[in-house]
């Protein structure tokens, strides 16, 4: 049986968490909603759906310094920044299902097969408290991939009136349940929660009408469209700005650069986000592997619906709809996928 928390106790609960953890939660800055570090819990905003910016920057920031180097005493000295990376315990509150799923996808790329130590440090000690959406955003299509509630989380909140019903998904989550804030939920509360989730999912579904649950089947279908004229068409529309990559919660490509002082005697090696839509992404001194824009457009779509399925058995798209929201060319990934599986 789950527990519940009265809505007017949530702020107290978050303050209590903040004593021991670094707290992240939805805020709005300069008109953009995102999940940020919270100094004052009154900054937290109540949204009915996901934030505009995903969780990605928390675990995989747009710029990551690797190390510092300095040419000294006829040699080179290196100072590794990894030990300084905080591995503080954090709690991320108010995350939506699509973004929890996206983090699981990032884990596949950056923890499971090949490990990125900077990502690991930030990710390992992060506790996820998610929450069911009240209604979908225009661009949302999470139900194409499954429900609104992810498989894994630490705690999961669902609005059931004066309370949030709280599902406990892990030992770490269970430890946060203090009876100062939580009370036992009744069977009726649980029924309310289920009805609530069903009703929102039905609302999303009615709009979405796409079902990609049968991964094997749909990945094959999309894979078989490699030579389709749709790529030519999208290639003509796309302007290669890379916004879709940067906003996507699962896109994880990066470039590595050295930034030096004026005489080059010292500097830092950093990584910055990169985009597979950009012209030079796969360029070498010998050739440019995806010189044509249509090849780059296809690559990104395939790297969401085909390649990760081949390698990890999952889609790398969670239906958050952000890339459709930001694309200046009006390319709507949900519409693209719908055409591909027709």
């Amino acid at each position, binding site marked *: 049986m789950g527990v519940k928390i009265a809505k007017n106790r949530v702020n107290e609960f978050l303050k209590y968490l903040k004593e021991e953890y670094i707290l992240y939660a939805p805020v709005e800055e300069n008109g953009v909603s995102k999940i940020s570090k919270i100094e004052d819990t009154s900054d937290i905003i109540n949204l009915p759906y996901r934030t505009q910016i995903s969780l990605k920057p928390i675990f995989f920031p747009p710029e990551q310094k*690797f*190390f510092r*180097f300095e*040419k000294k005493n006829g*040699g*080179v000295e*290196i100072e*590794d920044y*990894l*030990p300084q990376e905080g591995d503080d315990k954090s709690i991320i509150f108010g995350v939506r299902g699509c973004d929890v799923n996206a983090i699981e996808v990032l884990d596949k*790329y*950056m923890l499971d*097969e*090949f*490990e*990125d*130590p900077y990502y*690991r*440090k930030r990710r390992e000690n992060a506790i996820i408290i998610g929450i069911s959406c009240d209604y979908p955003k225009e661009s949302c299509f999470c139900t194409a991939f499954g429900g609104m509630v992810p498989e894994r989380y630490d705690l999961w909140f669902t609005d059931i009136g004066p309370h949030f019903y709280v599902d406990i998904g892990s030992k770490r989550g269970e430890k946060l349940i203090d009876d100062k804030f939580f009370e036992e939920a009744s069977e009726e509360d649980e029924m309310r929660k289920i009805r609530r989730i069903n009703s929102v999912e039905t609302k999303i579904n009615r709009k979405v009408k796409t079902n990609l649950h049968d991964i094997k089947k749909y990945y094959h279908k999309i*894979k078989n469209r*490699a030579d389709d004229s749709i790529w030519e068409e999208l290639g003509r529309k796309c302007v290669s700005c890379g916004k879709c990559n940067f906003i996507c919660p699962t896109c*994880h*490509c*990066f*470039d*590595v*650069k*050295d930034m*030096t002082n004026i005489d*080059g005697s010292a*500097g830092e*090696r950093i*990584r910055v986000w*990169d985009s*597979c839509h950009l012209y030079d*992404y*796969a*360029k*070498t*001194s*010998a*050739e440019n*592997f*995806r010189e044509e824009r249509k*090849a780059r457009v296809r*690559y990104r779509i*395939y*790297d969401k619906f*085909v*390649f*990760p399925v*081949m*390698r990890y058995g999952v889609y790398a798209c969670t239906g958050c709809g952000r890339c459709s929201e930001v694309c200046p060319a009006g390319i709507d990934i949900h519409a693209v996928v719908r055409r591909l599986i027709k």
Partner: protein
Amino acid sequence: MNNPYLPAVARITDIIEETPDTKTFVISSPLKFKPGQFVELSIFGYGEAPISISGGNEKSIDLTIRAVGNITKKIHRMNVGDYVGIRGPFGNGWPVERAEGRNLLIAAGGIGLAPLKPVIEYVCNNRKKFRNVTLLYGARKPSLMLFKYKLEEWSKHMDVLLTVDEPEEGWKGNVGVVTTLCDRIKHVSDTVTLMCGPPIMMKYTSISLMELGFPTGEMYLSLERNMKCGIGICGHCAVGGLYVCRDGPVFSLNDALKLIEKPHEVQGVID
């Protein structure tokens, strides 16, 4: 926590001028490597580039580098005693063991000879393990041929077939692209082929060898892709869902042909 992005600092201990645009740098980095593997070479302040290991011993590795851009031109201006950084070795390397007891064809174009040199040296030191061995090597001009000072030694152990696109004074050998030499190879069946060179060379050599009846299942190509991390995370080297830095750089021709995104090296090989 081990940091795979951190290079080990090493020194340039010797520099061998190979051709006007290529030098071999001996780097004080004692790495155990498989022929065909590469390192990420750091020039601090300039960045990193993937470079094949062209030789080595307990104390050092050799990197044979053609000056083409930012980092590679910079190292050409560096001197013995200067410091660089090394990460690696990375990649799968050549499946040399598959050729043991069989015939071996080593086909190289231009700088593509560098990653094959450790294979050639292994063959020279373990000649009995292989049956017929041929080295096929093409360069743009005779003056651009790498490791010329080694060719005599190598030809004691294997058939060495050389060609250039444009002859220069004194060149008595073959003129023409690598494919013009293919029908001079004395062994066809049961041959394992290891190939590295510019995309165009690999493509046409593959076609020629297939026409001559070389087993396609035993042809291996080393692919060159843009790389930033070398460890399967940055995404740059991905081809059809595989990471050239981790799953490659060596792929069998059959596997390369099955990729959804056809590498230029094999585009048009079968159609």
